[in-house]
């Protein structure tokens, strides 16, 4: 029996965001936007969903006069990401 994949991570953009944050731990919105090629609106919605689940934390502030949103993966998010990757292995043929 295949393990159930986390539905929150089983989405292209959210998975890409979590993969980047698993690598860098913390990144600002513009870096995530550039790396994922997503629109600002869509990325913002998906970031909110990940934050609501406690997978990432979001800090909003300013760098100079420019607004700056920084996303950081939480221990819960990292654990969920690892579990998702482990679950994926069961779906792949050996």
């Amino acid at each position: 029996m295949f393990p159930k994949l986390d539905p929150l991570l089983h989405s292209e953009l959210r998975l890409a965001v979590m993969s980047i944050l698993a690598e860098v731990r913390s990144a600002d919105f513009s870096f995530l936007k550039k790396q994922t090629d997503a629109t600002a609106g869509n990325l913002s919605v998906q970031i909110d969903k990940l934050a609501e689940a406690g997978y990432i934390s979001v800090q909003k502030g300013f760098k100079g006069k420019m607004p700056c949103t920084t996303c950081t993966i939480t221990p819960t998010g990292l654990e969920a990401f690892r579990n998702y990757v482990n679950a994926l292995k069961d779906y792949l043929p050996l």
Partner: protein
Amino acid sequence: MTAQQSLAIIAESMNNSRKAILRSSAPYFFLWGILLTVVSLVIYFLWHASGHPVWNMLWFAMPVLGYASAFLLRKKEGPVPTNEIGRLLGPIWGTFGVFSMCLSAIAVFFVPMNISLIIVIILGLAESISGVVLKNWPIIVAGAILGIGGAVAASLLQGAEQLFLFTLGGILLVLTGLIIKFQYK
């Protein structure tokens, strides 16, 4: 989305962000490499022309110029996150900077020593360790040549000619930047 597609997204996202982060370190290797080359040549020509080693005091201007330029560069490039490799490279070169400035100050003001010999060794060491972190053999070998070969050369060369070791070190830093830029294109 299939399992293969999920894995492909994970691999591509991690790989691309890793490349972007490492690529962003290349301009700093260019900056410090060019600065080291220029400062060493300027001091060489001033020392050679005047016959006085007092021009070596200009080395103390290098961290001021370097950190001010690095600050401006960071502002221009915008914020780039870091990863495990970036978190290692920064302290390696930061430690090199602190060691070389402290030893230079001690050599100039308190205990005379062959500072070129010492600095060329730790410069080569920092370069080789960077190569180990980046898993890049040309950088490891370049660091070893600079550190070991430079130590031998610093013992043999006298006076202003020792400065050419730092010119070589600067060129190697620029080459390291180029290797990083093309390796993580």
